[in-house]
């Protein structure tokens, strides 16, 4: 897919909470019998005063701070993609837009598509700016992923995400070369209204879901662009567990060096809707003018959004504020499972 006028990312910002729980702390509490080693060593945990709204505000502030010449009031759309909204009914995006000084003349809504909600917001932001409807649109993917105590997901469900502000290409630090979306009805993972924790459609995990959609969307985008894996300097994928990313990228022909900067899950777990957007932010922290970035998300239910970006000279002047690595290095370890349960509000006073 291409837009009528060229569009790119004008500013970006990431967020990862300060707390980490080693997965060894979780296995010590549950003593799973004959279980395999957890896929990550530790995962990020939100502070007691954090949620998707507060995390999205911080990522959004960084994104806007990196393009100070842009008046927040010219941003015509704010979308927050998440599967862990603080309210079942009441938009997160209006709080975020208000805190960032974007209200009231803006479109605002929350997006839901499991882990693809953030990249869905990116597609829509590209379309809004690309059609000329608005001069800027803010797409955020952020999650404080839920997991049932003792469930396999508890070892990888992390927290974090990123904000990407789309603007016309002449003001962009990375220009969108094109994008595709690929979706089917696949029952691999779901959570019903009112249910506290998600469920797995176990036999649909992996092959018919993550790999089918990630590979199909990626191949379609490469075909549309007439490009090959080797034409890109960096590649970012949705990161449920690191080994999924390694396998999908290898099948597409990407090397370990190409996925290195964007692979954040080993240090924080799976950030769900935030995962691929955070990986993209980590790549932008490192990218040089002229480089090309390949991006592909995945969300259960199921679908993938693939994007290609071309990094511009502006990248070097748009790196004020905390980088992804700074957030990952800022860590306060929680080694007490009870403290972890309290931070995740699984035990509470009222």
């Amino acid at each position, binding site marked *: 897919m291409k837009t009528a006028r060229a569009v790119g990312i004008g500013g970006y910002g990431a967020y990862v909470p300060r707390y980490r729980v080693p997965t060894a702390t979780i296995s010590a509490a549950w003593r799973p019998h004959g279980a395999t080693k957890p896929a990550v060593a530790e995962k990020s945990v939100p*502070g007691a*005063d954090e949620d998707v709204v507060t995390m999205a*505000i911080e990522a959004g502030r960084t994104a806007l701070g990196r393009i100070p010449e842009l008046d927040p009031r010219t941003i015509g759309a704010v979308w927050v993609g998440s599967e862990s909204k603080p309210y079942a009914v009441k938009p997160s995006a209006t709080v975020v837009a208000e805190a960032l000084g974007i209200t009231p003349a803006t479109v605002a809504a929350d997006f839901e598509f499991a882990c693809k909600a953030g990249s869905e917001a990116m597609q829509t932001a590209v379309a809004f700016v690309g059609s000329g409807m608005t001069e800027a649109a803010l797409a955020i993917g952020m999650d404080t992923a839920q997991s049932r105590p003792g469930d396999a997901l508890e070892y990888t469900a992390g927290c974090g995400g990123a904000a990407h502000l789309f603007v016309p290409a002449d003001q962009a630090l990375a220009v969108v070369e094109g994008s595709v979306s690929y979706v089917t009805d696949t029952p691999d993972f779901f959570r019903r209204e009112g249910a506290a924790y998600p469920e797995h459609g176990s036999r649909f995990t992996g092959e018919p879901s993550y790999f089918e959609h990630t590979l199909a969307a990626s191949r379609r985008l490469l075909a549309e662009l007439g490009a090959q894996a080797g034409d890109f300097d960096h590649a970012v994928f949705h990161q449920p567990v690191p080994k999924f990313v390694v396998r999908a990228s290898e099948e597409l022909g990407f090397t370990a060096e190409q996925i290195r900067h964007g692979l954040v899950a080993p240090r924080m777990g799976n950030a769900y809707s935030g995962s691929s957007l955070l990986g993209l932010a980590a790549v932008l*922290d490192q990218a040089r003018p002229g480089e090309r970035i390949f991006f592909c998300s995945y969300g259960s239910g199921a679908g993938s959004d693939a994007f290609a970006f071309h990094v511009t000279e502006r990248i070097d002047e748009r790196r004020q504020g*905390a980088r992804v690595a*700074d957030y990952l290095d*800022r860590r306060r370890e929680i080694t007490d499972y009870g403290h972890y349960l309290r931070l995740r509000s699984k035990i509470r006073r009222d």
Partner: protein
Amino acid sequence: MDLPRYHRLRGAYYRLEGRRCTGCGAVAFPPRPACRGCGGRELEVHALAPRGRVHSFTEMATAPRGFDPPHLMALVELEDGPIIAAQLTDIDPEDIAIGMEVEMVTRRIQEKGPHGYLVYGYKFRPPVPRGEAS
């Protein structure tokens, strides 16, 4: 905090917006309908600096209802002068020091039970340390 008050003060809570008197220049935070200095009513929106230093602090032994422990209260001297009362976050009590640099973040400051509304507002925390770009 009741809902109408929270809604009325959201500019102050989310963006540190006070009022500046166009007559005498006095700044009020949170906003007031009239200037305390000269009684003037011509006031303009004035956002305070979102950075400052810890002027003094205390750990409240019991967090008020709707606030989560540890409840760390500080007086923060902002870069542009005013001193405001705010909670500290993302820090352990033993690591707080008078004079330490802090920046504003927006956090949950109250939850009206599992079915009630959430109050978001300013807190302060040490800036995220910046490593060398690689």
